[in-house]
């Protein structure tokens, strides 16, 4: 254990997170409004419209093959009406985190674009699972899935420096990669992700999903959404979508499938749908102009 230099590393991590870009103010406002029953399409459209770049990105995403709209949507208020508040909120979050998640994450041997693909697959999977087991939070599951691994961006350099030790620890002690991160570095990507989510003022429920996505039963209240994101993450990893050097060195927490009453055929079907939707979402992966402010 490198306990002696852990506090110093933790300081460095906190600094790294401080240096990450903020979530654009517009997204924070849209998130708040989308959850407020008094908001209407016009007022949400007006808020997004204050940010020109965001407006362009949201319209581009709304018109991508992923949503399969029958005709081209050219105004924000139209997009909000057709896709709904919650989807627009997702689009705004996706648009604003794309640049960060699309980076090369060398510590995990992830080429540029791979973490974004993994995040998107987890988002799609979490939403599918939430729908299937009738959780009342399908849109939130999408966002949580999209952001679950955001901590990898922050601990990337630390993992790169000690990748061999972390992998060795995982193999030697037969522990998942995330636990080996904790053992070697003194922190892990789930915890770092929760710190980022707090910095971004995301709702506590979202912070909790990110923090506990590898051990959902530890979540205070053991919310279903955390299990949905955990399962979606594990399925995306199993499918090899955006996996890096940490590969399949993860486990599915016992009791997850039982909690949802899912059988092997259900799991295969969810996998199949994730793959189908990822093919449709290919158009979402190529937006070089989508940048974080």
């Amino acid at each position, binding site marked *: 254990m490198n306990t002696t230099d852990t506090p110093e590393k933790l300081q460095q991590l906190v600094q790294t997170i401080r240096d990450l870009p903020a979530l654009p103010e517009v997204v924070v406002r849209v998130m708040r409004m989308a959850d407020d029953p008094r908001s209407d399409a016009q007022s949400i459209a007006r808020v997004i419209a204050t940010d020109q770049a965001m407006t362009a990105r949201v319209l581009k995403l709304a018109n991508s093959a992923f949503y399969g709209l029958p005709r081209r949507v050219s105004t924000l208020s139209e997009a909000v009406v057709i896709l709904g508040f919650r989807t627009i909120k997702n689009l705004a979050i996706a648009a604003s985190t794309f640049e960060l998640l699309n980076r090369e994450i060398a510590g995990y*041997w992830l080429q540029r674009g*791979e973490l974004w693909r993994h995040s998107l697959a987890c988002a799609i999977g979490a939403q599918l699972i939430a729908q299937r087991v009738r959780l009342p939070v399908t849109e939130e599951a999408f966002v949580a899935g999209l952001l679950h691994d955001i901590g990898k961006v922050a601990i990337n350099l630390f993992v790169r420096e000690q*990748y061999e030790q972390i*992998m060795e620890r*995982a193999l030697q002690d*037969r*522990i*998942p*990669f995330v636990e080996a991160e904790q053992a070697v570095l003194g922190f892990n990507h789930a915890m770092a992700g929760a710190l980022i989510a707090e910095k971004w003022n995301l709702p506590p429920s979202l912070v909790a999903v990110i923090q506990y996505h590898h051990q959902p039963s530890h979540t205070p209240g053991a919310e279903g959404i955390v299990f949905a994101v955990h399962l979606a993450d*594990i*399925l995306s*990893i*199993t*499918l*090899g*979508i*955006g*996996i*890096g*050097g940490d*590969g*399949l*060195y*993860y*486990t*599915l927490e*016992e009791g997850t*499938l039982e909690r949802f009453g*899912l*059988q*092997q*055929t259900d*799991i*295969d*079907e969810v*996998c*199949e*749908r994730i*793959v189908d939707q*990822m*093919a449709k979402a290919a158009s979402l992966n190529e937006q070089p102009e989508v940048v974080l402010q």
Partner: protein
Amino acid sequence: MGNHLTVGMGEIQVVRGAGHVLTALGLGSCIGVCLYDPLTRVAGMVHVVLPKSQTDKTGELPGKFADTAIPAIVQRMVEMGASASRLKAAISGGAQLFQFGVSNTLDVGARNAEAVVAALRAAGIPLQAKDVGGNAGRTLRMVSDNGLVAVRTIGGAERELVVLGNILSASGVAA
């Protein structure tokens, strides 16, 4: 090198002649199947995702499922001039989650490998080399010049698995 083609999930790619490289990136529990006809240099790769379809959408992406992938790729290769009787195979992928012993519900990797091996056997194609299982992600590459198949573990070095064009006998490895 001339033509680089990526073989995405459920996709089949078939090329003919020298100068092509087929690559399947990020194989987890999926299986990359390489087929090669040494005489015509017709090379094919398919990225199999699951053993068989649960939703029965036949024909959409036959490469996605082991049971439909092998007949589909063989047909494509024969259309390109290969002889089904000359085809040789190598497979890689089929990784599994770490420490997963309790239930086999998520054991997609092992089920995929089993289904692909069975489908190859049913098609009468000898399996010359395989690198399956374990917990690491893989990238699989095949060169059309000679049927060289190489596997890289993500985070590790690439190693040669087999040169399918060098194999003259029709015997396969024990599957």
